[in-house]
């Protein structure tokens, strides 16, 4: 009898806990599912309440429209070019800097980076617009890449400094005693064991650029329009072409969802650097 009661209580607890987890998961998944299915519906179906959640006739018109009539293929390429190039260049400049900041304990540099991360982007955007329109560089990939580097570099240096600090210094000291130069030691010993950190900060930098709206809004144009900027053109006054806009939204968010599913562990690591350690 007592054993039975214990079992029932345990089962009850598990059911309750599963309920709690569902309360957390459903508010995230249901909106995403709703947007996904709405992107396969026409205007009338989108507006139909109660909504048809499972059995409806999916149509591809919205997707055909955004790729054929609009230039979503080009926008995807533009976004990818800017995200990949700004990440690569930020790594090139930021990772060595992070290494010496960690090794030589350059505390001031660290404070400067934190300040740069907390800075309101818009307070540097106005001068950018001014300078780059004088240089006739608005609507070029160069200006988008440079501006996104300003956002990703502090992030990369911040994450990698934390990562390098945790690598025991003895590892290098032995090599240096053996006559290895510091830069070779960095290239041959430190970088290979830093892959997890590099994956973390590259992912976050790529996503930050892919999602960036504010800089691209001012600094891009018809030739270099990126995905987030393209989204706003579906809204004109009160009239929103939902189906098409949601298809475009799906195009913007699917890569980020896929990356998150593959690299969750690394992303979580990057998000907690500095926040917990203090």
């Amino acid at each position, binding site marked *: 009898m007592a054993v039975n009661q214990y079992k029932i209580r345990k089962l009850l607890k598990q059911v309750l806990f599963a309920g709690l987890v569902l309360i957390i998961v459903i508010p995230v998944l249901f909106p995403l599912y709703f947007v996904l299915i709405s992107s396969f519906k026409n205007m009338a179906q989108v507006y139909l309440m109660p909504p048809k959640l499972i059995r409806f006739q999916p149509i591809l018109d919205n997707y055909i429209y955004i790729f054929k009539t609009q230039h979503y293929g080009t926008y995807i390429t533009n976004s990818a070019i800017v995200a990949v190039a700004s990440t690569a260049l930020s790594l090139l400049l930021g990772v060595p800097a992070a290494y010496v900041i960690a090794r030589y304990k350059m505390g001031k540099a660290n404070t400067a980076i934190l300040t740069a991360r907390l*800075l309101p982007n818009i307070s540097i955007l106005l001068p950018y617009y001014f300078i780059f329109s004088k240089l006739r560089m608005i609507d070029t990939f160069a200006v988008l890449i440079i501006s996104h580097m300003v956002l990703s570099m502090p992030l990369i240096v911040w994450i990698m400094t934390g990562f390098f600090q945790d690598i025991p210094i003895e590892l290098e000291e032995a090599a240096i005693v053996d006559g290895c130069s510091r830069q070779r030691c960095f290239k041959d010993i430190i970088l290979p064991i830093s892959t997890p950190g590099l994956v973390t900060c590259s992912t976050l930098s790529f996503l930050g650029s892919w999602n960036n709206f504010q800089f691209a809004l001012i600094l891009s144009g018809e030739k270099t329009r990126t995905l987030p900027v393209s989204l706003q053109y579906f809204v004109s006054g009160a009239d929103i072409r939902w189906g098409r806009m949601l298809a475009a939204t799906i195009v913007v968010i699917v890569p980020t969802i896929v990356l998150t599913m593959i690299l969750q562990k690394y992303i979580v690591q990057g998000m907690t650097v500095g926040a917990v350690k203090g």
Partner: protein
Amino acid sequence: MKKIDTFINKHIKWVFSLPALIFMLAMIAVPITMTLVFSLNEWNLLMGTGMKFNWGKNYMDVLSGSEFWQSLAITVYYTTLATVAEMLLGIAIALVLNQNFRGKNVVKTIVLLPYMMAPIAVGLMWMLFYEPSSGLLNYIFTSVGLPRSAFVSAKQTVIPSIAAAETWQMTPMVVIVCLAGLSSLPLDPIEAAKVDGATPIQTFFQVTLPLMTQTLFSIGLLRFIDVFKSFDLIYAMTKGGPANASRTLNLFAYETAFSYYKFGTSSTMLMILFVIVLLLSVGVMKIQRKLVEYYGG
């Protein structure tokens, strides 16, 4: 070749850090200085006249106008609402996910999804749910007997509605940081409390929460600063409307520059915004250091 190698080896500290430092100086310190200079000048692009130094008149004008204070009040209201919601929800979710259960990693990934998405996409998504006549949320509201809401199209409800979308997207950040904080807690005090017969609720409020103070302060202030300067979500949903009811400082400065081309006045607002964020950031670092001293890290 050999010479270059020895040179780098000797001066590695600067060879490695200078390119990044120079880039950041050129791209951040220089523009901020330019904004400061702009802010001290009368400068309207539409008038076609150049910059004219006007002895801080912009600051007087901005600070004495009611529009600025209204915008600041909206910003503080929006930021407080979203930050408090994110913190409470974030801590609650982190406590649930801190348990060990099957499929925990999958759940963590799902929770993380909104945070990784473009804010502009999240804003437009929520506009679909907020659609006043035939949107999903009003359908749910009427089904359960609640009155319909105008959400983002009414002055009273616009800020809470945008704050809800912001909370939906950014709570994962709080969850992840709290989870990391929880897993790094020492187990002894919590075990001791259990042995002493404390209920889980007592343990949470009297043991876990005090141990988490530092983490919670850091993430809370970081979230506050982030929301304070956020732009994309509000721009996507209302562009500051209706009747400027959701025009935060960031949007106000943007509008002044790129709709009215008053670069001088806009720069003044941006400088004020910059100083507020800077003061908040200094606060973050100071409090963090104090707490580290107090709790011994």
